């Protein structure tokens, strides 16, 4: 439906040019924000949506905070932390922090939250964010010990992100359903009202603790509405109903920029797009994808520079390794496959397909990118039989029977560590199309080592082998367009988490 709707946008935007934007936002100290997707439950442990990640940073705090600019970990609810051994972490907690309901933040809250979410029977949806923790133990009113199931060097990355701390008494009483309707946290904004999936009103929390690494909230109110259609969002922007929208498609962003009435900003996100190929032969022992030369040919066949320049635009970049460049352990220093259709044809001939072959090609999002990729594949003789499925349906198919080739994307949950992407897909799990024991062994070593240098070394080995074997065809990184009122001071970050608490009026 989305693609049908965007067809009308050009018309709408041309008409829009004549109008002048109405004043909103700044005059009543309210930032009016649109989400495109419904956020069903604001409780961050019970949604896997980007919008949920944003809300979680706004309303709650985690033990640590990663500075998006320097990448440095700072104490948020914790003031001090250290490894006791490979699987034990000790924290000293900040004193004098209050929850929005007036309760004091203490070790009990950390212990309760961790123990509750780590228990699989409570059905936390984003299991990967919590299933590395075994339990938490209270050592004193402001001292906590965290027990891990196994060595997990990326722990700080998770503790600074998707593990918010909840008030123990309140959460025990109301659970995820109550937390979703009346959220209570320690974060810079408190929630005034929730209309599930539709409308959230937030207010600056005056009692927010002064030394927070997040800084102090500056804008008085946040009014967040879900508006599914991007044209309607643009109309609201013009009529003064909205001050800030994001994830605006490149074409629309360009038209809006040309009107010269709003600030249009672009920033890369951690999401990368890639082709996944059935190297292990899940769909048939001798299918073309099992042949190295075919996979290399596919890598050579696609003009990724052109895709970035013409379709993705903005700050998107060509990606060569199976990870996002800013992630810890990621390296661009691997075998590269520049655009070379002649070489692709040659390799196909060497692999025994001088006339090419036909293959089922799957995708679940960004149909236009998938179609462009098909164009390149067709040009070297690979005939694609295109199948577009829902994400969950495609994943199920990949898990149960496998597919020969698919266009995939992965956002790593904004986790700035290679373990969130490469280890996710190359450790013989059900979405691992390569099934390479050697790669798994190196990733295991890197994932569980506490020594950063050793981690880097083994990640590099794994990434190099993945590139040599051309298990994937890494393509490009994604970007997001932000369009907002000129009264607003805001700089987007590469982790694609807009921090409302750092925005201010000019």
């Amino acid at each position, binding site marked *: *439906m989305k693609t*049908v*709707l965007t067809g*009308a946008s050009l*018309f*709408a935007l041309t*008409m*829009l040019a*004549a*109008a002048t934007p*109405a004043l909103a936002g700044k005059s009543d100290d309210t930032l009016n924000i649109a989400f495109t997707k*419904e956020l*069903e*439950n604001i*409780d961050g442990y*019970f*949604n*896997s949506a980007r919008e949920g990640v944003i809300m979680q940073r706004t309303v709650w705090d985690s033990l640590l905070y990663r500075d998006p600019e320097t990448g440095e970990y700072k104490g948020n609810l914790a003031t001090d932390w250290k490894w006791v051994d490979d699987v034990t972490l000790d924290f000293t907690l900040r004193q004098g922090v209050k929850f929005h309901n007036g309760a004091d933040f203490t070790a009990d809250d950390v212990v309760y939250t961790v123990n509750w979410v780590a228990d*699989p*029977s409570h*059905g936390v*949806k*984003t*299991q*990967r964010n919590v*299933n590395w923790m075994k339990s938490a133990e209270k050592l004193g009113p402001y001292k906590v010990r965290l027990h891990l199931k196994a060595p997990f060097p990326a722990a700080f990355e998770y503790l600074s992100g998707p593990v918010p701390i909840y008030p123990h008494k309140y959460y025990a009483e109301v659970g*995820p*359903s109550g937390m*979703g*309707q009346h959220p209570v946290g320690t974060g810079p904004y408190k929630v005034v009202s929730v209309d*599930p*999936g*539709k409308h959230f009103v937030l207010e600056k929390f005056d009692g927010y603790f002064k030394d927070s690494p997040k800084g102090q909230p500056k804008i008085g109110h946040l009014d967040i*509405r*879900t*508006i*599914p*259609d991007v*044209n*309607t969002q643009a*109309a*609201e922007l*013009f*009529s003064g*109903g909205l001050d800030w929208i994001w994830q605006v498609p490149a074409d629309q962003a360009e038209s809006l920029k040309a009107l010269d009435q709003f600030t249009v900003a672009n920033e890369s996100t951690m999401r990368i797009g890639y082709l996944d190929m059935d190297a292990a032969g899940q769909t048939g022992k001798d299918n073309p994808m099992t042949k190295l030369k075919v996979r290399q040919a596919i890598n050579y066949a696609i003009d990724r520079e052109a895709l970035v320049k013409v379709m993705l635009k903005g700050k998107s970049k060509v990606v060569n390794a199976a990870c996002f460049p800013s992630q810890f352990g990621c390296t661009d220093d691997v075998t590269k496959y520049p655009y070379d259709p002649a070489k692709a044809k040659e390799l196909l001939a060497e692999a025994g397909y001088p006339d090419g072959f036909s293959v089922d090609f799957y995708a679940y999002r960004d149909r236009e990118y998938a179609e462009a990729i098909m164009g390149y594949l067709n040009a070297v003789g690979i005939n694609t039989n295109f199948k577009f499925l*829902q*994400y*969950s*349906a495609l*994943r*199920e198919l990949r*898990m149960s029977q496998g597919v020969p080739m698919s266009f995939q994307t*992965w*956002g790593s*949950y904004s986790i700035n560590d290679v373990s969130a992407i490469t280890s*996710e897909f190359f450790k013989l*799990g*059900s979405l691992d199309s390569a099934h390479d024991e050697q790669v798994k062994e190196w990733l295991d070593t890197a994932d569980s080592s506490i020594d950063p240098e050793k981690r880097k070394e083994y990640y590099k080995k794994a990434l190099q082998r993945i590139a040599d074997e051309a298990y994937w065809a890494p393509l490009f990184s994604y970007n997001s367009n932000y369009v907002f009122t000129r009264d607003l001071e805001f700089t987007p970050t590469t982790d694609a988490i807009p921090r409302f608490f750092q925005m201010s009026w000019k």
Partner: protein
Amino acid sequence: MVFTLKRLGLALLVALAVSMLSFTLLHLSGDPASAIAGEGATDVDIAAIRAYYGFDRPLIVQYADWLFKALRGDFGESYYFQLPVAQLIGDRLSITMTLGVCGISFALLTAVPLGVAAAVRPNSLIDRVALFISVMGQAMPSFWFGLVLVVIFSIKFQLLPPSGTKSWENFIMPTVVLGYYAMPAIMRLTRAGMLDVLSADYVRTARAKGAGEMRVMFKHALRNAIIPVVSLSAVQMGFMLGGSIVVESIFALHGAGYLAWESIGRNDLPTVQALILIFSLFYIVFTFLSDLLNAWLDPRMRVG
């Protein structure tokens, strides 16, 4: 009485069949656990979720469980909202029903007078205008028409809010868009029915006995011509309550139609199941009501 009871019994059976079919199809269409687990879940996570929600039980057991709870008014809890489905739907349904009632009223209030006027003077200017309006209504996709209205009334003249459900003003444009979509069929049917009836013997008789033109039109002619319109409107009304997804999405109304669309996408089975049941009940109730209304309009039908 027997007529009414028979119709009611049939309606209940239809509702049961719909719920059974939709339940089976939904569960066969994909693994809900894998959808709930979201991007990045491992097999173990999915297995845990499958067990947590009871998807590992036989389908017939799951259906029986759902049915008995549903009969007591308990439609379960949405997998995504962690809220009772009844609460979730109740909230959204009021928006959809407001929109549906306004939409069909708008359609009827414009289409029937236009249709009558067009029939009274066939091939006149008013007939041409009516034809033009109905062709436009058929030809314009509602998402486009909706955006045009937004551009004119929200942006150019800043008279109406483009989206949301804050006040009654928010419903004006959606009503027009939704109503306009249903209007052409009703108008053409009214016109055709009236043309038929106006040349009938009993209308000539009515005129001959000296009845006034108004009385001939509305008491004798329209009453007969309107019968198929009533049936059509019932179907249109059902369609509006269940299928106003595009309109709800453009104007960010968040009604039941949009909820259904989103819930299907994310495999939120309890929500989808309850919505399908409610939408099918709408059709059943409106068809039932239109049968009763037609029986009242035309005594010959009461035998049925």
